[in-house]
């Protein structure tokens, strides 16, 4: 059971922090799968957009403290809502709600605890510039792992729809209770009309890999 939970956590753990990287859901009636993988943070989720503004799906997250002594495994159902969108001639801006409820396990307490994870993301993007901020509460009885992340990036050139577009992205993020440091990760982002991947190394010299796919 614990192995199954871990596998589930690994798979959907890649999904949650994706909300901080780009639009956290696909187009109407599409599935999106996302992953964010690094040694201390493995997150994954899949969601189904049942309207143009609402998506729901399973999410798994594994978190580990910097000293590797404390771990968290969260399995939840997450709901994503596009609260507001501004479609401009050469830009798009969004406000998103992402929130879930699920079961949390940890190696420093027994059993499971119910965790709630409401969050807000704001982002602004043109064909050459991207910026976002994401804040999310991770709360359970006696536990507070609130999370905040900010990203800024630029593309090296404007690309056609069917071309690969490389971006340089810098992410800064922080989480309570598990890490005292602010994680800074410069990343190379590649966007194509079929996939979205990011690869970077954080300030602890740990590799990070992110991906998104919509189908």
């Amino acid at each position: 059971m614990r192995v199954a939970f871990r596998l589930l956590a690994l798979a959907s753990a890649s999904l949650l922090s994706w909300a901080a990287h780009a639009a956290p859901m696909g187009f109407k009636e599409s599935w999106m799968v996302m992953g964010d993988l690094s040694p201390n943070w493995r997150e994954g989720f899949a969601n189904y957009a049942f309207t143009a503004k609402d998506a729901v799906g399973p999410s798994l997250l594994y978190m580990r403290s910097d000293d590797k002594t404390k771990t968290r495994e969260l399995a939840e159902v997450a709901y994503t809502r596009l609260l507001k969108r501004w479609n401009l001639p050469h830009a798009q801006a969004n406000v998103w709600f992402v929130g879930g409820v699920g079961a949390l396990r940890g190696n420093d307490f027994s059993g499971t605890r119910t965790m709630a994870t409401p969050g807000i993301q704001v982002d602004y993007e043109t064909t050459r510039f991207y910026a976002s901020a994401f804040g999310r509460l991770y709360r359970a009885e006696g536990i507070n792992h609130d999370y905040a992340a900010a990203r800024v990036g630029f593309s090296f050139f404007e690309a056609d729809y069917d071309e690969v577009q490389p971006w340089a992205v810098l992410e800064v993020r922080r989480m309570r209770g598990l890490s005292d440091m602010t994680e800074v990760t410069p990343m190379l982002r590649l966007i194509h009309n079929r996939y979205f991947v990011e690869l970077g190394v954080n300030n602890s010299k740990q590799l990070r890999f992110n991906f998104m796919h919509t189908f």
Partner: protein
Amino acid sequence: MRNIIVSLAIAMAALPAFAANSVKATVNGMVCAFCAQGIEKTIAKMDATKAVFVDLKSKVVLVEAKEGKTLDQKAIGAAIVDAGYDVVKMEASTTSVDEMKAAAKSAKK
């Protein structure tokens, strides 16, 4: 003389049959290929669609109809909105997707 005029009239009437039957939509908010894929995927599934072209630079979506089929502008507009974008202009066009791709390529050079 009369035969020439009749022949000319027939030839001119036949001209539109050689031009593409397309719909051109100007779309706001279309800045990312990964995010705009919903437009292409949804419209490509429509029965009357022969080809779809998304041009991020000019913010245009061009939909070309299959021969003998009529595109549903309302459904195309709804697909773009469901993909998360705003349609600011929708018009009939005789430009084919291949022609627009070629024009976009030559503009890039």
